[in-house]
C-alpha cells in the first residue's frame, strides 16, 4: 500500500513539474508571408493582381463603393436609380454628409491599391529566378501606372490628395509620423503625370497575348496622363476662387487661384501626342458595315458591347451582371432571359440632348422636333414600325442605341414572342406591375446585352478612343480656338454616329469658341452618356449647380397612356458648392492634424 502511495505521489509531482515550454510555440509554420510571396514569380504576379483589383468595376454602381464602382451614373444629370439604397439617390437630394459610408469607400480603397502597388514596386526585384529583367520592369511599370491611375481617381473625387511617395507607411509608424498634409493640385498633377510617363516608357503598346489582354499598356498610361492634364486645366482646378479657402494648416494654397491657360495647351498636346502615336495603327473608332455601308446604330452600340474592339483603350473585364439587370426591362410575361428590372432610368434632360437625325439639336426650331402625338415609326433595330410618341421619332442613331422608350422592341430577340417594352403605368415594365420598374419612363439601353442578361462577362469600358477625341477637341478649343483639328475630330465622332457633320449642308460649323464649346459639350453628353463622364464633366466645368440642382424630369410613370408622355419631376435635386468634391473621411481629418477638410463639409 505504501509503495503504491509513493509511486502515485512521484507520478503526480512529475506531472506537475513537466515543463511545457514548447506548448505554445505553435506558430503556423510554412505559411504564406510577404517574403515568401516575393520569392517566386507566380505569387508575386498574384500580388500584382490584387493591386489591379481596385480598378473600378463600374457595372456594379447599384452598390456604390463595391470595388470602387461609383455613383457617377445615377448622380449625374443623365440618369436615376429606382432603389433607395443606391447612394446616388442620397447624393441627388443632398442627403449625404461626412459620415456617409460610400464617401469613405473610395478614399480607403484607392489608397489600399496604392499601398499594394508601392509595396510591389519596391519588392518585385526580390524575385530572382524564372523572370527576366524586362518582365520585372514591365510589372513594375504596371504597378506604377496603377498607382498613378488611383491617384487620378482620388483627385477627381476628393480634389487635391495626400501623396505618399515611394514608401509604404509602416504599420507601427508613430502617429506623429503620419500627420501628413494634402499636396497641392499642381503637385498631384506633376506626380501623376511624371509617374505615368515613367511607366509608359517601360510598357508595351499592346498586350503580348490574349492571356494578358487586360494589363496596363503604354496607351492606357498616356491616356490617363492626358486626362489628368485635362482635369488640371478645367475651371474647377484651374483658378477656382470658390476653393480659395482650401489651404493647408500652414497656409499652403491647394487649388491654384489664377487661371493658367497654358494648362489647356499641355492637355491638348498630350492628346495630340496620343493620337499621333496610336491612331490608326493601334486604335480606331469602331465601325460596323452592313452591305458595305457604315451602320451607325450597330457601330455605336457595339463599340460598347464587343469585347476589346479597336476603340477600347482601357477596359476592365468583369463577370458581374448587375448592370444587365438594371438595363433589362421587367417585361412581365416574357421569358426570364429578357426579364430584368429596368431600374436605371434616363432623365428627360439626357433624352433631350440627343440630336435629331438631321444633326440639329431639338431646341433648333428647324430641327423638325414634334412634341405631341404619336406616329408609326420603325427603330433601327426593329423589324416593324410601331406606334411611338413623336418626340422619339427621327432622332439620331445614338438615341436608339442609348434609350429604351415605351413600345420599343428589346435587344435580345432570342425570346418568343420578342419582348416589347411598355413603360406606362401598369405596362409590362412600368410602375404598378412590379416592385421593380423604371423611375423615369426611359430605361438606359447603353451596354444592354443582346444575349441572356444573366450572363455576366463583359468589359467595362473606362477609356475609349471617342473619349480621347472629345477630350482633345475640348482642350484644343480652349487652348487654340479655331484650330482645324477641332472640327476634324468632332466630326469623326459624328460621322461614325451617322449624324450630319458640322460644316455640311444645312448644318454650319459652330461660329466661335463659345459656340464650339457648347457643341463639344453636347456631343460629349450624347456620345459618352452613361459612361461615367458626364458626372465629372459637369463638375470640371463648374456647371453642376445648374445641371444637378432643382427638379429632375422624367415621364409621368404614374399614368397610363397618353398621360404617361407628360413630363414630370421625379425629384428635386440638391447641389451646393460643397458637392463639387466628396468630403475627406472625417476620421482621417480628426486623426491627422495636418489634413484639411474640403470646404463646406
Amino acid at each position, binding site marked *: 500500500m505504501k509503495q503504491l502511495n509513493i509511486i502515485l505521489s512521484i507520478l503526480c509531482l512529475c506531472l506537475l513539474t513537466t515543463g511545457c515550454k514548447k506548448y505554445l510555440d505553435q506558430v*503556423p509554420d510554412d505559411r504564406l508571408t510577404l517574403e515568401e510571396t516575393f520569392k517566386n514569380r507566380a505569387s508575386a504576379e498574384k500580388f500584382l493582381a490584387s493591386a489591379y483589383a481596385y480598378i473600378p468595376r463600374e457595372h456594379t454602381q447599384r452598390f456604390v463603393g463595391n470595388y470602387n464602382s461609383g455613383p457617377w451614373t445615377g448622380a449625374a444629370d443623365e440618369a436615376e436609380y429606382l432603389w433607395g439604397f443606391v447612394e446616388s439617390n442620397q447624393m441627388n437630394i443632398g442627403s449625404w454628409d461626412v459620415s456617409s459610408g460610400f464617401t469613405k469607400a473610395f478614399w480607403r480603397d484607392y489608397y489600399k491599391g496604392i499601398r499594394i502597388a508601392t509595396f510591389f514596386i519596391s519588392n518585385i526585384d526580390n524575385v530572382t529566378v524564372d523572370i527576366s529583367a524586362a518582365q520585372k520592369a514591365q510589372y513594375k511599370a504596371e504597378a506604377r501606372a496603377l498607382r498613378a491611375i488611383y491617384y487620378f481617381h482620388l483627385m477627381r473625387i476628393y480634389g487635391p490628395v495626400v501623396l505618399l511617395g515611394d514608401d509604404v507607411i509602416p504599420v507601427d509608424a508613430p502617429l506623429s509620423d503620419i500627420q501628413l498634409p494634402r499636396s497641392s493640385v499642381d503637385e498631384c498633377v506633376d506626380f501623376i503625370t511624371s509617374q505615368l510617363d515613367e511607366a509608359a516608357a517601360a510598357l508595351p503598346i499592346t498586350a503580348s497575348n490574349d492571356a494578358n489582354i487586360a494589363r496596363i499598356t503604354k496607351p492606357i498610361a498616356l491616356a490617363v496622363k492626358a486626362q489628368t492634364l485635362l482635369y488640371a486645366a478645367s475651371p474647377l482646378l484651374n483658378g477656382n476662387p470658390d476653393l480659395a479657402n482650401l489651404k493647408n494648416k500652414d497656409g499652403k494654397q491647394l487649388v491654384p487661384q489664377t487661371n493658367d491657360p497654358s494648362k489647356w495647351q499641355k492637355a491638348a498636346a498630350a492628346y495630340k501626342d496620343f493620337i499621333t502615336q496610336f491612331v490608326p495603327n493601334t486604335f480606331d473608332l469602331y465601325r460596323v458595315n452592313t452591305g458595305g455601308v457604315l451602320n451607325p446604330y450597330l457601330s455605336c452600340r457595339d463599340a460598347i458591347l464587343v469585347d476589346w474592339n479597336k476603340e477600347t483603350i482601357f477596359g476592365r473585364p468583369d463577370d458581374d451582371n448587375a448592370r444587365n439587370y438594371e438595363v433589362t426591362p421587367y417585361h412581365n410575361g416574357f421569358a426570364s432571359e429578357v426579364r430584368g428590372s429596368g431600374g436605371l432610368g434616363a432623365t428627360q434632360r439626357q433624352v433631350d440632348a440627343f440630336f435629331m437625325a438631321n444633326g440639329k439639336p431639338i431646341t433648333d426650331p428647324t430641327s423638325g422636333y414634334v412634341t405631341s402625338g404619336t406616329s408609326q415609326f420603325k427603330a433601327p433595330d426593329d423589324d416593324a414600325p410601331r406606334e411611338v410618341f413623336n418626340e422619339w421619332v427621327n432622332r439620331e442613331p445614338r438615341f436608339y442605341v442609348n434609350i429604351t422608350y415605351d413600345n420599343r422592341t428589346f435587344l435580345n430577340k432570342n425570346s418568343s414572342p420578342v419582348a416589347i417594352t411598355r413603360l406606362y403605368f401598369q405596362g409590362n415594365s412600368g410602375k404598378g406591375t412590379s416592385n421593380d420598374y423604371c423611375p423615369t419612363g426611359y430605361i438606359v439601353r447603353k451596354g444592354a446585352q443582346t444575349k441572356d442578361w444573366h450572363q455576366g462577362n463583359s468589359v467595362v469600358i473606362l477609356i475609349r478612343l471617342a473619349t480621347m477625341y472629345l477630350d482633345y477637341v475640348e482642350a484644343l478649343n480652349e487652348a487654340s480656338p479655331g484650330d482645324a483639328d477641332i472640327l476634324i475630330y468632332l466630326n469623326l465622332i459624328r460621322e461614325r454616329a451617322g449624324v450630319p457633320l458640322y460644316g455640311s449642308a444645312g448644318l454650319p460649323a459652330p461660329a466661335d469658341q463659345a459656340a464650339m464649346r457648347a457643341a463639344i459639350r453636347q456631343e460629349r453628353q450624347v456620345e459618352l452618356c452613361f459612361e461615367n463622364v458626364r458626372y465629372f464633366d459637369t463638375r470640371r466645368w463648374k456647371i453642376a449647380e445648374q445641371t444637378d440642382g432643382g427638379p429632375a424630369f422624367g415621364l409621368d410613370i404614374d399614368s397610363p397612356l397618353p398621360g404617361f408622355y407628360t413630363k414630370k419631376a421625379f425629384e428635386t435635386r440638391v447641389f451646393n458648392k460643397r458637392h463639387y468634391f466628396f468630403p475627406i473621411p472625417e476620421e482621417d481629418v480628426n486623426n491627422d492634424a495636418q489634413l484639411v477638410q474640403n470646404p463646406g463639409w
Partner: protein
Amino acid sequence: MRNQILLFKKRWLLLGIILLSVINLSAQIAKQNISGSVRDRAGVFLSNISVQVQGSNQGTITDAKGEFNVKASKVDSLVFSGIGYNAQIVVVGDNRVFNIILEAKQNSLNEVVVVGFGRQRKISVVGAQSTINPEELNMPVSNITTMLAGRLSGVIGVQRGGQPGRSGADIWIRGISTFGGGSSAPLLLVDGVERPIDNIDPQDIASFTVLKDAAGTAVYGVRGANGVILITTKQGKIGKPAVQVDFSQGVSMFTQVPKMADAAAYIEAANESYTARGQASKYSQGYLDSTLSGIDPELYPNVDWFDALFKKRGSVRTANVNVSGGTEFLRYYGSVSYYDESGLLKTDKLQSYNADLNFRRFNVTSNVNMNITRTTKLDLGIRGFFSNINQPFIGTQDIFGSAMSTPPTEYPLEYTGGFVPGKNPNGGYRNPWADLTRRGYSTEFNNQLFSNLRLTQDFGFLLKGFSATTMFSFDAANTQIINRGKREDTFFPDPENRRNPDGSLNLTRTFVGGGNYLGYDRQNRGSRNFYWESSLNYDNTFGDHRVGGLALFYTSDKTDAFAGDFASAIPQRYVGLASRITYSYKDRYFIEGNLGYNGSETFAPENRYGFFPAFGVGWVPSNEIFFEPIKNVISYLKFRYSDGLTGIGDIVGRRFGYLTIVADNQQGYRFARDYGYLSGINVTEFGAEVKWAEARKQNLGIEIKTFNDKLSLIVDLFKERRTGIFLRRASLPTFMGLPNSPFGNLGISDNKGVDASVEYNGNFGEFTFSVRGNFTYNRDKMVENDQPAPKYEWMDRRGYNILARFGYIAEGLFRDQGEIEASAVPGDRSIIRPGDIKYKDLNGDGLINSYDQTYVGHGDVPSTVYGFGFGVGYKGFRLDALFTGQYGADIYLAGDAIQPFANGAGISNVFANINDRWSEKNPSQDVFYPRLANGEDRNRNNVQSSSWWIRDADFTRLKTVQLGYTLPKSFMKNIFKNAMIYLQAINPVTFSNFDLWDLESTVNVGNGTRYPNIKSYSLGFNVSF
C-alpha cells in the same frame, strides 16, 4: 484483549439468571473502546466532527483522516455532530466500529461551496459568488441559460428567440465591460473543464455557481475577466441504489405573436401612404369591397400571415431516469434523459418531406467515484448527448421577414394547382407561406461527448493536510447539417388579363426557380478538446488557525476539426498556473491570496504570459465575543472585500495577433480575353504587439442573517476598470491603405454597480413560506475607444455606456409648413410635410447631418435585472412562483412593417396599431407613426436613426410557476420513497408597456422578426424508489 476476556467470562458464567444478570450489568456499564470514521455523502472523511457520549462530557473529535476512538458502554448513545452537518445519534449496542455518514445541512455556513479549481467552506469565501439550488433549474426548457436572469444576482441575460434548439440566452456577469474585438461572454466550466452549458440536463446538475469578482476569477487569468460560471454534475452517494424518475408533458404557445393589421386597415393605410403625399391612392373602393367580401381570394387575397404560419400549440416533453448509490469503495451516479420540443410552425401535409420544426435531445451522464486505496481516489465522469433539430430550409427569421414585408392583400397562400405566388423576376418579395412550406427542410444533428478522469492522492502520511490531484479530460463535438432546399417557379396573374375565358387564372411565370425537387447540401462542424490539470493541495488547522494552499498547473488544447484555413486548424492552446493561499483565524478573520499565471498562443512569445494576482479579506463579527449580546438578533454578519486583476485573452476571429497574415485567393483580376481569373495575394491582417486585456475588479460585500436565520441578505458593491481592450486602431488614417487596421490594446472601460439577494423562510403552523428576491444593476462606461475626437463633443461615444445608441433627437412632428421652412431637415426639403419628424439641429448649421447625432438610447442589454418570488407549502402541497424583469434596455424600431411602406417598393405589412398615426384628421403629436409616406424616397426623413423609434424595453414577467403535490406516505405503501406530481408554467404572463410583440426575444431585431419566446404549461411527476 479486554473484550476477549469479557467474552470468555461470559461463556464460563452461564449458570444462573442472577449471575447472568450481574455479569450483564457489569458488561453494560463497562466502557469499551469504540472506533470508526466519519464521512460525508460523497465519501469525504470529515475531521473536527465531535463524537460525544450522550449525557456525559466524554467525547472526542475526528482527526484529519476522519477517524475517532472513544470509550463508551453498550447502553450509551454516541452523538456525532459538526458545524454544517445534521447531528446523528447512534446506540452503541454490540458494535465496536462505526462508519458514520453525516448529512450536510442545507445552507449552513460550513457548507462546502465550489470555487475556482476547488471547494471551500462557505464561511471562508471572501469573493463574490452567487449560487442557485439546482432544483430551481429543473424546468421543461431545452437550455438552462434562459432560466438564469432574475434568479442569480449578478447575471444579466437576454433570450434572443424561442425557436426549439436555438433558444439559448446571452449571459453576461455584471453586464458588459468590453467592446471591439474581445468577447464579453463568461467562462463556462462544467466539472472543471471549459464546456458549453446549453445542452446539460438540469436534473444532472449538482451545483451551479457564478464567480463574479477578482478573488474568484484571478486564478483563471486570461479567461476570467467576464466572470465564470461553474457547474458540477451529480455524484453517487453511499447507500442502496436510489432511483428517481421524472417525466413531464406540456403544451407550448407563443408568449406573443406580432399583431398585424387586417386587410381593411391595411388598405386604408396603404392608400393614405400615397394620398398623404399628393399621389393617387393604390386600391379602389371596389378592390377593398372585393377583398373584404372574400368572393375571389386568389385575385383579392386577404391573409393574416402570422395566422397562416403559426400553429396554436406545440408540445414539450421531458423525461429523466437516474440512479445513484454505492459503497464506501465505489459510488455511482447515472442518468439518461430525453427532451422533445415541437415548434409552432405549420407544415404542408401535401409535401412528401418532413419540414416540422422540432428539437429532440438525448442525454447520458455517468459519474463513478472509486477509492482505490484508503488514500487514493479515482473519479470518472462521462457525459454526452445527441440532439437533432429539424426545421424548414428557410430560416425562421427570414420567413418572418417575408411576412413583415408582405401585405395581407399581396398574395394568397398559393394559387389553385399549387402554384407559388410571386412578383419579382429575381425572386424578391417572397411568399411567406411558400418560404415555410415549399422550400424544403434542414436537419442539424449534434453529438457531444465529455469525459474526465481524476486521480486524487492524499499525502497525509507525508504531511498532514497535503494532497495532490490530476485530471485529464477529453471532449469531442460533432455537428452535421443537411440542407434539402428547393426553389419553385413563381407565378402571378397577368395584370392585363387576369382570367382566362374559361374562368381559370391566367398565371404568368414571374421567376424561374431551381426546380421542384429537393437539393442536397451537407455541412460539418466539429471540435475536440484536451484538458489536463494537476494540483497540490494543502489544508490544515493549527488550533485556531486554519491554513490552505493550492498550486495548480493546467494545459488546454482545442482543435477545430473542420477549420476553413490552416491558421484556424492549429489547436487553440492555453497553459497556466493557478495558486491560492488561504488563512483564517477562529472563523472570524479570513485572508486569501489568488494568483493566476498563464499564457495564450494568441500573443507573441515576449507578451505571452501574464500574472493575475488578487486578494480578499473577510471578517465575521458575529463570531466575535463582543457580538454575543446581539447574536440573537443578528445571527450572522460578514464583511468581505476583494481586489485584483483578471484578464481576457482571445480576440474574436483573430488568432496569432502578432503575426501578419498573407492570404491567397484575395480579390484579383481577369487578365485574359476569355475572362480567366488570377486571384490575388495580399495581406489580410497586420501583426501587432497585442496582449491580454486586463480587468481590475473590486468588490465589497456584506452578508447578514437575522430572525433566527430566517432572513438572509447579501449585498455586493462592485467596480471594475478594464484596460487594454482589443480594438482595431482607429487612430490610423485610412490613407495608409491598410487592408484592415491592426489590433491594439487600446480600449478602456469602467463598470460599477450593485447586486443583492434576499431570502426569507418562515412558517405559520403547518404553512411554510419563503420569499426571495434578487437584483443586479450595473453601469458600464466606455472610457477610451481610440476614436479621434469628433468635431463636436456630443458625437463622442466616450463617457456613454458601451452599447449606447446614437442618432438624431426627434423633437416631435412638424405642425405646419411654416415650421418646416424654419427648420433644418435631412436631405430633400420638398418631400417634407406636416406630421413628419422634426430633428434637433445640434450644431445650428441649418443642416441635419451626422454632426447632429448624439446619444439617444441605452441599447438592448438592460442595466437592471431583477427577480422576486415566493413559495408556499402546506402539508403535501407546494406552490412556487418567480417573477423576473428588466429595466434600462431599449429597443430601436426599424424595418419592414414597423416603418410601414418605407422600403424601395413601398410595400410592406403593417402592425395592428397602424391607426395610431398622424394624419390630417388626427394631427396629434402623441402618435406612434408619423405621417405616412410610400417608398424609400418619401419616407427618408422619417426613417432616419432617431429617438422617435426608440422604446423602453422594460418588462416584468411571471417566469415560472410550479404547483407540486407530494403524495402522502400512506399512499405510497413502501413502493416509493417519494412521489410528487406537479404542474409547471413558464412565461405565462408578461407585463410591459410595449405590446406589439414579445420584447425579450426580439430586442435587437427592430421589427420583431424573430421566432417568439414560448410559454408552456406542463404536467409531470417525480418518483423515487
